[in-house]
């Protein structure tokens, strides 16, 4: 049986680069086919019928033709434009972060439908929520779980005993928590205050509706954010470029 020549797919555009005279090469994430690299021909011309439908971070339904090197987008129609995140610089920068995470944690053609759902869900919330801190942490913990890096937050990784409600330790290389006894013995294990551990557990296990109602003090927020970011950076073994931009915006808005 010969391979299908055309296929329909929903896709979220993660990144794109200009290619040749008027073409663009897109990296998209799809529910049934995972991450794909697709060629969009002629979309840098003002009269292109596709251009407005394949902007970054849009959810688009597309018809794709199988090609030699790259599959080529032949039709595209926006399903969700997530306008809120286009009209706010902070949100745009956070959307870049989400897309960079998905791009870094996935391989081409690795199917991961739940991750697609998570990304679409998060982009939709990002575009209309005012406070996006918890949303981003929720996304980080869940992308870790969905890509096989779910940190163990309930038992000590050495002695397998449930963690006592005290100051426990997190070890990046082991991918989870250690009880005080084993944590102190391990170099590079990070001490985690109890409120931080509780927040992490809550984010990992509870549905978003409950997470959204959490009220946190700024210190815990900072700790959770820093811990997750350094754990992700440790796993990816490279710095996330979009984070530099987010930090810069935060610095400038405080000045």
């Amino acid at each position, binding site marked *: 049986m010969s391979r299908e020549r055309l296929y329909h797919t929903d896709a979220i555009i993660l990144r794109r680069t200009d290619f040749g005279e008027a073409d663009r090469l897109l990296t998209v994430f799809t529910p049934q086919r995972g991450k794909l690299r697709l060629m969009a021909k002629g979309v840098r011309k003002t009269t292109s*019928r596709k251009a407005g439908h394949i*902007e970054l971070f849009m959810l688009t339904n597309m018809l794709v033709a199988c090609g030699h090197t790259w599959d080529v987008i032949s039709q595209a129609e*926006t399903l969700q434009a997530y306008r809120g995140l*286009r009209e706010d610089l902070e949100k745009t920068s956070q959307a870049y972060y989400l897309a960079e995470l998905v791009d870094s944690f996935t391989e081409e053609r690795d199917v991961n439908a739940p991750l697609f759902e998570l990304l679409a869900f998060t982009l939709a919330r990002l575009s209309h929520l005012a406070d996006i801190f918890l949303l981003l942490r929720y996304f980080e913990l869940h992308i870790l779980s969905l890509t096989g890096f779910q940190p163990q937050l309930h038992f000590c990784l050495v002695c397998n005993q449930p963690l006592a409600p005290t100051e426990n330790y997190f070890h990046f290389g082991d991918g989870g928590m250690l009880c005080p006894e084993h944590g102190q013995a391990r170099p590079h294990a990070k001490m985690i205050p109890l409120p931080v551990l509780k927040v992490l557990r809550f984010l990992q296990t509870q549905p978003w509706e409950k997470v959204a109602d959490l009220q946190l003090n700024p210190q815990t927020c900072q700790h959770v954010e820093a811990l997750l970011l350094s754990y992700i950076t440790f796993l990816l073994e490279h710095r996330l*470029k*979009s984070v530099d931009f987010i930090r*810069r915006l935060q610095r400038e808005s405080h000045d």
Partner: protein
Amino acid sequence: MQLTPAPVTKLIEEFSRLPGIGPKTASRLTFYLLRNPADRAKVLAEALQQLHAKVTFCSQCFNITENNPCAVCSNEHRDPSIICVVEEPLDVIAIERTRDYHGLYHVLHGVIAPVEGIGPEDLRIAELLQRVRASDKVREVIIATNPNLEGEATAMYIARQFQGSKVKTTRLARGLPVGGDLEYADEITLSRALSGRSEIS
């Protein structure tokens, strides 16, 4: 044993480094030049040499130019109270073609693209701020970056830098292209086109 002489392979190699040119095109170009009279190659070589020797950036608007300041910046008939900010030198040419704009320009040489690692510090944004602050003539800054996400992010970033100053920042309107088709227009373009509609006089 080498079948093709070294100068030939060298030129093929150099051609194939250019964007959009593969090894086949590179060798076709090389053999075309080889077959043609030597002065054609000489003219090309001279043009290439002069490219970097004679072209510099204008110290005011950072457009490419032979003379510093460039022809636009030194033209006293241009209106110094308006600066149009564009991404690339080619955008200046596009706007000049309209013959409707008589102000000055500022070329950023790129857009903010966090995932490619291009931040505001890699563009000529600081120079723009300094230029506007140093002059008491500038009343309006038109941000004419491309109407895509990177362009919008750059526009929002620049507009934010001018917040609280007397300078007005404006953005090019968005709407339907000539020769376009309503049926294929995306919702963002269409709704901008609707909100920016004008009366038929």
